[in-house]
């Protein structure tokens, strides 16, 4: 049976189509104003990309912030559980994934996976943008750099400085004062990445850092951040092939499982 997993996040929406174990397609789209519109957009995108007809999809699971606001779907699952299901499925060359760090636009999650593959424990950032992907996007804008250039600048930094990441709004004014002191953009970009890496590193350590540790979500596409997270954990992290759609993959797996249960 073909199943779909839709992950309606705070910044982007992701979709995965599965036919049993076979991946038929995946899509990532920037969000529309309403979660229901984002859900339709990303579902259309994944159907178009894979050439599957809407009517051929047997079950749709929704997850992420907009999971209850999608307006369609057969089954709702939290992104925590979807994340674990996705991670167990993709695995890693070094063995099963036991810890997942998911850096999204609005929140950061750490999920500990037990030996049986279920969620053993999890943590999320408090209500605050300071430990999230949004923090980096805001600071990139303040430095007048596109996100890619901001990441590249961070990788070029040779004179690291220290910055706190306790408040995303105040961090913007800190950036302004650093610029006024003629600090290089590279060093500011690196400090911003470092601040996030330290915060999320502490969160991973609180949950426990059982290896293999996977880094997923939009944040995992950021090479500078991945390097600094590894340094902060003093451990290697595994970045799956499509880190942004891992949660949507988990939702599609869950949809398959639920549909099979219902068929019994």
């Amino acid at each position, binding site marked *: 049976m073909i199943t779909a997993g839709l992950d309606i996040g705070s910044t982007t929406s992701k979709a995965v189509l599965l036919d049993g174990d076979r991946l038929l397609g995946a899509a990532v789209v920037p969000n529309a104003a309403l979660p229901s519109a984002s859900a339709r957009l990303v579902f259309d995108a994944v159907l178009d990309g894979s050439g599957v007809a809407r009517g051929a999809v047997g079950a749709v699971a929704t997850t992420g*912030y907009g999971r209850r606001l999608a307006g369609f779907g057969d089954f709702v*699952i*939290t*992104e*925590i*559980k979807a994340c674990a299901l996705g991670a167990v499925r993709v695995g890693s060359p070094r063995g099963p994934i036991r810890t997942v760090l998911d850096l999204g636009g609005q*929140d950061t999650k750490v999920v500990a996976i037990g030996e049986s593959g*279920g*969620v*053993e*424990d*999890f943590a*999320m950032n*408090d*209500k605050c943008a300071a430990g999230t992907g949004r923090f980096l996007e805001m600071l990139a804008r303040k430095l007048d750099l596109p996100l890619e250039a901001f990441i590249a600048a961070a990788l070029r930094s040779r004179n690291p400085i220290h910055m706190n990441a306790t408040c995303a709004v105040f961090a913007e004014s800190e950036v302004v004062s650093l610029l006024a002191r003629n600090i290089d953009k590279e060093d500011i970009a690196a400090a911003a990445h470092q601040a996030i890496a330290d915060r999320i590193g502490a969160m991973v350590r609180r949950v426990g850092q059982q290896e293999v540790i996977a880094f997923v979500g939009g944040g995992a596409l950021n090479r500078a951040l991945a390097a600094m997270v590894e340094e902060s954990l003093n451990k290697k992290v595994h970045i799956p092939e499509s880190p942004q759609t891992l949660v949507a993959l988990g939702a599609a797996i869950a949809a398959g499982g639920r549909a099979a249960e219902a068929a019994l």
Partner: protein
Amino acid sequence: MNRQPTNPYALRPAFSDNPGNRRKQAFVEADQRRRLDEIPQRPADIPYFVERLVNAAAAPKRRPRIGLLCNVAPVEIVMAAGADPVRLDCGNSAAAVAGEEMLAGDVCPLAKATIGVFMREDGLPATCDAFIVPATCDAKRKLGEILADYGPVFQFALPVDKDTVRHSAEAAAELRHLAAFAGKVTGRAPTRKALRAAIALTNHRSDIVHRLQEARIAHPGALSIRDLFVCIQASLFSPEPLETWVAHAENLVHAVKAFTAERRNLRRRVVLTGAPIIWPNFKVLNVLEECGALVAADTLCSGAQACIDPVVLAETSLDACFRALAARSVFGALCPCFSSQATRLSRVLDLVEKTRADGVVQYALRLCQPFDIENYRLERVLKERRIPFLNLRTDYSLEDTEQLRVRIEAFLETV
């Protein structure tokens, strides 16, 4: 009358005239009332408790009134002095914003909301003749001096730990000072007879809360945790006579005991611990129940823990009454202001066993450091025993409701 030496730096009490904020305070209450109306299973007596709680400030004043903060000063002493006790801690998020006229934004929301209500000339504190402010956390310790601008304040001193060998006599002596203070406010010093009568009445309340708890454990779903909190808080946060509450609460116990479920309740049972959840800040309770959790028991000083333990009198002298009151209110308190958290840990573990709970949820009020710090040991002790645990760190505002929902749903999926 002020227990502190007269403050040479006393200020005139500050009041706030902000109609917009008053409107928001009323909105916050009305909104939570609407949420209560959505509870599916509600015994017939619940509206009495809702009205009593919501209209506390409008209750007719029949005798002197003494306002208290926290749950560690025994109300029996106030009652024995011929005054009505009323708890003044506040859970209104809009009142917390009003409190920011006086206190910095990153002070504990409970302290800000409480001061926000003192800043209303039509608020419940304005009807009180005196206040009892325990030196529990830093916020309360410092509020005492500010509240002394609004009326006579007894700053109730507490031992740092619960070593009864060291602190029993001093705690009883502190209650004697409190009795003298209350007697001065009312002109009627508490007698042994009056104190025993007050203890008999509050022990009746403890018995009711105990029976409600037992009935809820036996029949989960018979009474929502939100309605239980409304019922308990209607007795603590309203100056109306406890006798009337007792009569209605007896009816409630009958209704809850008579409840028969149509089918077995399969919802996940959790024990709730942590910071006080005070009307109308029921955000966490709303989300827990909406996500399908069944809060089987709690250790909150604004929930069952506030009055479930009776006063155990072994002797009849006034001193014996003070010692027994100290044993219940001070040494039995689960407040994290004491150096050790062992009492709370034991209570949590005991409740997990009694209720056959699937997990423990802690409500950690943001900016409340004692609960934040206690979280370290709580989490490890529970995990060592393989009891699933979720720490919800949040404040009075509603903006993180969806985030809380994700955490709670995921937790319930996990346990």
